[in-house]
């Protein structure tokens, strides 16, 4: 395995002037998982193709370890790919599917078989080795496809293109756990490309948020969630996203805002206060400043109904998690347990 470095990487499709990837700088440590998260059109697929060797950077350098691989094609790059949908040979058994990449690279039959069985056992596929893909569940198929990608021992990087998207929610957990423990066990360098923030934040130790061809922020999931670099990131990460109130509004002479703080932010006109739903506790009060305008059931807690509540006060809207029976039109003040302070202006160039 190798560390992966993007050094001021840009990319234009031929004949276009607007770059799809803009001056990307990123360092991924050897043996770690890194998620590239972005909405459609952010440049994920272009970056994926560049990492796998289908595209070369228009400028800048891509390094695997110390080696500049910018102009090395896909065939010569030691990258294992896992796709969104299971890619397996339908006419071959699972065992033959797993052995295929090895035999293709000149392994002798006996060793290829041994390695295939070893990987299959680790991923709990041993029972289905003799079956053809048609006899597998979707979960087993995707697991077999993952095993096929992980069977090679000479790869620098495992590149995952939303491998859990097609798998049912209940099975995602098992598949992700298998993948995660295999990664830890073998110290694999993994890059996980996805539009799904839950996938990105749960799977990777570091996350880069990609938007319009730029990396907006790189950090641990906790960091990105709690300390977004700007309004876009705060809104994008988390479901629901952050809601915002200008800090200056807290200190103005306008009517009271109905927010209760242990420690209010200091006076600073150039700052936004970002607040997440679980950082707010609504306190019911007949003369509360905030009016409940929406309610979405989340579940229960200690037998009490738990909902995501939307509160409005003039132009401001905040979301809060509330227990008990709330109805539209109810009034409350909101206790703020925590908040993030962000610059009022969007940030553009950020390094990791």
């Amino acid at each position, binding site marked *: 395995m190798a560390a992966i470095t993007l050094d001021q990487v840009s990319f234009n499709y031929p004949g276009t002037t607007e770059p799809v990837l803009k001056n990307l700088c990123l360092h991924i440590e050897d043996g770690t998982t890194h998620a590239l998260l972005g*909405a*459609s*059109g952010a440049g994920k697929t272009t970056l994926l193709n560049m990492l796998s060797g289908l595209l070369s950077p228009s400028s800048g350098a891509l390094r695997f370890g110390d080696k500049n691989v910018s102009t090395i094609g896909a065939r010569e790059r030691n990258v294992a790919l896992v796709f969104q949908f299971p890619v397996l040979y339908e006419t071959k058994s699972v065992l033959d599917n797993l052995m295929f990449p090895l035999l293709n690279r000149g392994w002798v039959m006996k060793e290829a078989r041994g390695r295939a069985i070893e990987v299959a056992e680790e991923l709990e596929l041993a029972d289905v080795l003799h079956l053809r893909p048609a006899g597998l569940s979707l979960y087993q198929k995707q697991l077999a496809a993952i095993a096929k990608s992980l069977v090679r021992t000479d790869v620098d990087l495992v590149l995952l293109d939303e491998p859990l998207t097609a798998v*049912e*929610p*209940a099975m995602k*957990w098992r598949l*992700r*756990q298998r993948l*995660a*423990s295999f990664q*830890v066990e073998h110290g694999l360098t993994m890059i996980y490309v996805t*539009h*799904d*923030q*839950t996938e990105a*934040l*749960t*799977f990777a130790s570091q996350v880069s948020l990609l938007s319009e061809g730029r990396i907006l922020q790189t950090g641990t*999931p*906790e960091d*990105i*969630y*709690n300390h977004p670099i700007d309004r876009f990131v705060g*809104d*994008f*990460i*988390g*479901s*629901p*996203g952050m809601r915002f109130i200008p800090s200056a509004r807290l200190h103005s002479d306008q009517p009271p805002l109905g927010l209760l703080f242990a420690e209010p932010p200091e006076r600073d006109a150039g700052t936004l206060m970002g607040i*997440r739903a*679980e950082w707010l506790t609504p306190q019911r009060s007949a003369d509360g400043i905030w009016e409940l305008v*929406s309610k*979405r*059931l*989340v*579940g*229960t*807690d*200690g*037998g009490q*109904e738990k909902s*995501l509540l939307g509160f409005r006060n003039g132009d401001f809207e905040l979301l809060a998690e509330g227990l008990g029976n709330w109805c539209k039109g109810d009034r409350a003040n909101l206790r703020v347990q925590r908040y993030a302070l962000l610059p009022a202006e969007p940030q553009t160039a950020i390094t990791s």
Partner: protein
Amino acid sequence: MLTIRECLLDPTRSESCDLHCEPGTVTVVLGPNQSGKTPLCRLIAGLSSSASGHVEVAGVRVKTSRGGSWAAGNEQVAMVFQAFVNYPHWTVAQNIASPYRAQGQADQSRVRELATLVKIDHLLERYPHELSGGQQQRLAIARALAKDPKVLLMDEPFVNLDFKLREALNEELRALVEDTGVALLFTTSDPSDALALADRLVIISQHEVLQQGKPLDLYQMPANIKAANLLSDPGLNTLSATRFVRPEHLRITSERSGYAAKVKAVESNGAHSYLHALVELPDGDKSWVAKLPGVVSIAMGNSTRLGFDERDVLELDR
């Protein structure tokens, strides 16, 4: 008001059920892939379907179970599919007006009104390929509403959308249903969407209705293990053969209470951490997943204790 009597999602089964959707409300059909969600929608829409049943819209029978053709009234049902279906060679405005073409009239102010409702009124002259995925799905919704249907069917409408768009459309759907008074039947495999959106929830699995009712009732009193698991992501944790606890109801507890748990992995998405652990129960070790608030950092292999509030325990028969 939509009613389906003697509904069979799989005609080889014998036990049928009745389904009702009230005007201005959202009925969510929750089920895994291949559980019969699409056949149900197709039955109601009058398309060929493996499901059977008598479909009534506003008290008028529009389709009988034995095949047969649609009586008057099928224009009162509109459907939005998982894939965005729009006319590629027509503009947004023309697409929205398309249901009126047969009558030879298109009221431009009505077209604008519908476009405003789904927030694409600034895109009226664009073509579908010039729209984002979310805008295309909004257009499909506007076109479906152009018929002024009494019933709107949405078959996993957000599957192909980015999660931020899903969030926005989810929030807007409720307002749209309240504004138009349409009876919305919405299918999904996502438990959190189901809880958040539904006035009434129907849980199906393997072409069978497992349970229907108010979402909170189904969450607190599931009919069986299968229904409870479908409304849980990740699935239920087992206490004994008949007692279960949901992942979100587990807490890390002190020395004296709860059960000893050996941590296998922790995954965190910022808002929640998912702690996978092997838990020592009186009748053997069990694998559990706890959905805990915030970021929890316990290394793999370490021990902790997991507990819960007795009021959140589910007593279920197999």
